[in-house]
């Protein structure tokens, strides 16, 4: 099994970014076909394809669309391009290299769900992708692919890019809706779910960039063609953004079910010379870490990774070799989550800060042995106790790092320095 280029086949072509270049490779050929279908047919096709949300949660896309009330109320389609999870950078490439692919996917999806208004919510730091999207949207409007009566079908769809201010939590769908509504980016209580009451209290579908881009392929070649890739329960291909201690970090599209070790050794050129694989976070920084032994057994699909107690998440594979200090690494993660917690729910607001303080006490040589168990206790009590999953995202790495690499934490507490690097935190960072 090798790379399967369903989405990224033409990403190496600079002209694919433009309307002409995209059209030259068959772009916007699926749209007229889709606009002649019944919306329910599109939804059924997406359901049949087994496409699951590529943003992290992995919820079946067609099923999510099916939750929309059938009452003719105005509804919105939001593209989640916030991409704030450390290690994740696949959507950025899609927006830069193939903005029209996303736009076409959004028009088809909007037609399917009956939405006349869509937004692409992009994190504020993504200046160039925003520029690419805006250019492409302008081109699409000029070509009659967006706006009123698209391709004479009678279907209207307007699309805008919304630039977020750069908060991790705005990647959570209800946090994104709050932000889009002009409020502080804070998640909302569910129920009601966005499909029932979302943006401006209207039914709203939030899908990831990769998910929406895949819709075009599914409608073009059919659900079965999509299902040829991947596994029974994890159909299709997936983009993995690989970072860390590998020879060739970058984005790779492989079929779901692809062995994780193959991704590292074959696609990414393996570890750096003289280095051994130590651990991998397979699905963005919120996913529990896998040891090298576990990595050998892991396939890149939802079920295999869940079986190993971790998750596919956004597909951000963070690779660590034997030079990596796990205490230091966890210190970076806890600092990130403490910084990004929106502050709404108490266990998350206080817990992320608490974890960060304990970790930094250890890193700065003030740790106590009981702090290691305290980290576990605090993280355990943050899990599943909040409105959104940020609390879990902060807790899961702590639980997995401390459990799987406890010796490094104990060494650090006892010696006041890293077992791996042999240096103190101050020496490591200065």
């Amino acid at each position, binding site marked *: 099994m090798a790379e399967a280029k369903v989405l990224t086949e033409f990403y190496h072509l600079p002209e694919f970014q433009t309307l002409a270049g995209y059209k030259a490779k068959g772009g916007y050929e699926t749209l007229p076909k889709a606009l002649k279908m019944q919306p329910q047919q599109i939804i059924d096709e997406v359901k049949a394809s087994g496409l699951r949300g590529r943003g992290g949660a992995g919820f079946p896309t067609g099923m999510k669309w099916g939750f929309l009330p059938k009452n003719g109320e105005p509804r919105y389609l939001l593209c989640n391009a916030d991409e704030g999870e450390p290690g994740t950078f696949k959507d950025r490439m899609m927006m830069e290299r193939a903005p029209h692919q996303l736009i076409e996917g959004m028009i088809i999806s909007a037609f399917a769900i009956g939405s006349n208004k869509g937004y692409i919510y992009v994190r504020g730091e993504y200046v160039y992708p925003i520029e690419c999207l805006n250019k492409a949207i302008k081109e699409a409007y000029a070509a009659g692919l967006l706006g009123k009566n698209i391709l004479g079908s009678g279907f209207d769809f307007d699309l805008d890019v919304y630039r977020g201010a750069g908060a991790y939590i705005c990647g959570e769908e209800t946090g994104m809706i709050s932000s889009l509504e002009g409020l502080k980016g804070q998640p909302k*209580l569910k129920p009601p779910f966005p499909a029932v009451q979302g943006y401006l209290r209207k039914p709203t579908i939030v899908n990831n960039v990769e998910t929406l881009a895949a819709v075009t392929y599914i409608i073009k070649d059919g659900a079965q063609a999509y299902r040829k890739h991947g596994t029974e329960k994890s159909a299709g291909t997936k983009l993995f953004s690989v970072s860390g201690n590998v020879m060739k970090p970058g984005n790779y599209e492989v079929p779901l079910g692809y062995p994780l070790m193959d991704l590292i050794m074959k696609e990414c050129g393996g570890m750096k010379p003289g280095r051994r694989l130590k651990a991998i976070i397979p699905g963005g920084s919120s996913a529990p870490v896998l040891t090298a032994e576990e990595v050998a057994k892991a396939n890149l699909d939802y079920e295999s990774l869940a079986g190993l107690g971790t998750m596919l998440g956004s597909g951000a594979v963070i690779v660590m070799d034997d030079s990596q200090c796990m205490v230091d690494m966890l210190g970076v993660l806890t600092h990130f989550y403490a910084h990004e917690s929106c502050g709404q729910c*108490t*266990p998350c*607001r*206080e817990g992320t*800060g*608490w974890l960060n303080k304990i970790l930094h006490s250890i890193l700065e040589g003030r740790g106590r042995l009981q702090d290691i168990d305290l980290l576990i206790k605090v993280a355990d009590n943050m899990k599943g106790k909040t409105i959104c999953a940020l609390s879990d995202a902060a807790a899961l790495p702590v639980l997995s790092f401390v459990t799987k690499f406890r010796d490094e934490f104990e060494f650090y507490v006892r010696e006041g320095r890293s077992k791996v690097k042999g240096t103190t935190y101050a020496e490591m960072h200065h």
Partner: protein
Amino acid sequence: MPKCTINGKEVEVKEGTSIIEAMQQSGDRIAHYCWHPGLSVAGVCRLCMVEIEGNPRVQIACNTMVTEGMKINNTSEKVRDAVKWGLDFHLINHPLDCPICDQAGECGLQDQYMEYGKYDPEMAEPKQKKHKVVDLGPTVVLDSERCILCSRCVRFTEEVSKTNELGIFNRGDRSEIGTHDGLELNNKYSLNTVDICPVGALTSKDFRFRQRVWYLKDAETVCNGCATGCSVKVYYNKEGFFRVKPVYNEKVNGHWMCDEGRDIYKFVNREHRLLKAQVRNASGWTEMTAGAAAKNANEVLKNASGDSLALVLTAQYTVEEFDAIVSTFVNEFKTKKVFFWINNKESFDNFDGLLLRGDKNPNTKGLLKVLEKHGITATWSDLSAGLANGSIKTIVVAGPENQAVFPDFAERVKELSKAQNLIWMQSGKNDALMSLTGNVWLIPMKSFVEKDGTFVNHAGLEQKFKKVTTVVSEALTLTEAALLLAGKNLAIPTTAQTFLPLNQREDQVALEARKKNEFVFRRGSL
């Protein structure tokens, strides 16, 4: 009507009832800081955890609706552990300054600690320091370090006062409540944010540090600040009244009251009161008891019956008092010259859409009803004409308790003092009255907390209230005054001990020095 089981008890609730509401209905205690029945559900404090049979994870009770057959408990080890940890998260950055915190004795966090805490703290890290004594506006002070970010105050300004001054700024454990740029918390309902703050983060500038709450007694009554007639609780001790808070009344004020209404306690305290009657004649002012002054006035009144005698009423007395005095004038003194002194005419009919009414009298409807019952149709112009042509020689006035809402007070005093004899009854002191010359009787009256009675609010709702205590022992009710003015003999019981509690709930702490932390009190652990 779904039926559910809460801690082993079967409870039937209305469709759409949340678990937390069902638990309140069943009398089960449940911790909650962010949930407030008058506000939207935020679900952020994560303390109202319950276990629902068949659900592996504990759930929040505020945002989970009761469904048929649901089995709920909040006493299991799993829930207690979740709540204990919830409390830990609340406390890690909260200063343990209960001895100086104004909320001590009324603090939800303190109550929770007594129930779930009493363990060794695990937080060894330095606390996140936040701002202290943040001046939010003319009425409220914020101690940000004590704030647990329940967002009740923010939701209040968004949903109830709709003034949107407050927000939560910054993220994570650096989050703090504050006012938006260029704004201060300055709306007509701002002090409700203090009432709903579950900890000591928001405090009232008026009440802050003036009393420890466990040295206060409280009693329910009806606000006499305007025609809405909010249900309120007044807090007092032997030193006087200290604050007023709203009491939930679905028909009148819901959970709230206005800031203006909170000032009503001030007019009740002794320092603002007329403590003794003052009677003035050609030889100057003489001090006497209220009863004696009223009897003394009878000498004048009995010779002034008929059209030369007028009665002026402000709508600040009870229905029973109006009935007594108007009956006396109509039946004993044979006059129907009874006049309604309407204050602030320009804004009398105003309404702010929530609670505050331009009519600053608690009983306008009650007064009008009594006047109608006695067939009284006299208008103020009749009075002015009578004074101008000298036909009205003697006037009895039942003046207002809250003189501040009678902007024409001095003007009316001047107008009414044209009469040969002016018998003025009211509870407060007033310089304009003391500077009068001629024949004047100033008779001290009881305030609304010192008597039983009925107010009829703007909507015609009759609200009975009970006497809270005595502040000015010798002061009269209008009913007593009516009898004395009519020459009847009446024993006015006086007491040397004022501020004794008379209107208390059964479960209320009775002793002045007993700590008013009711949870602790019920457990008897002090």
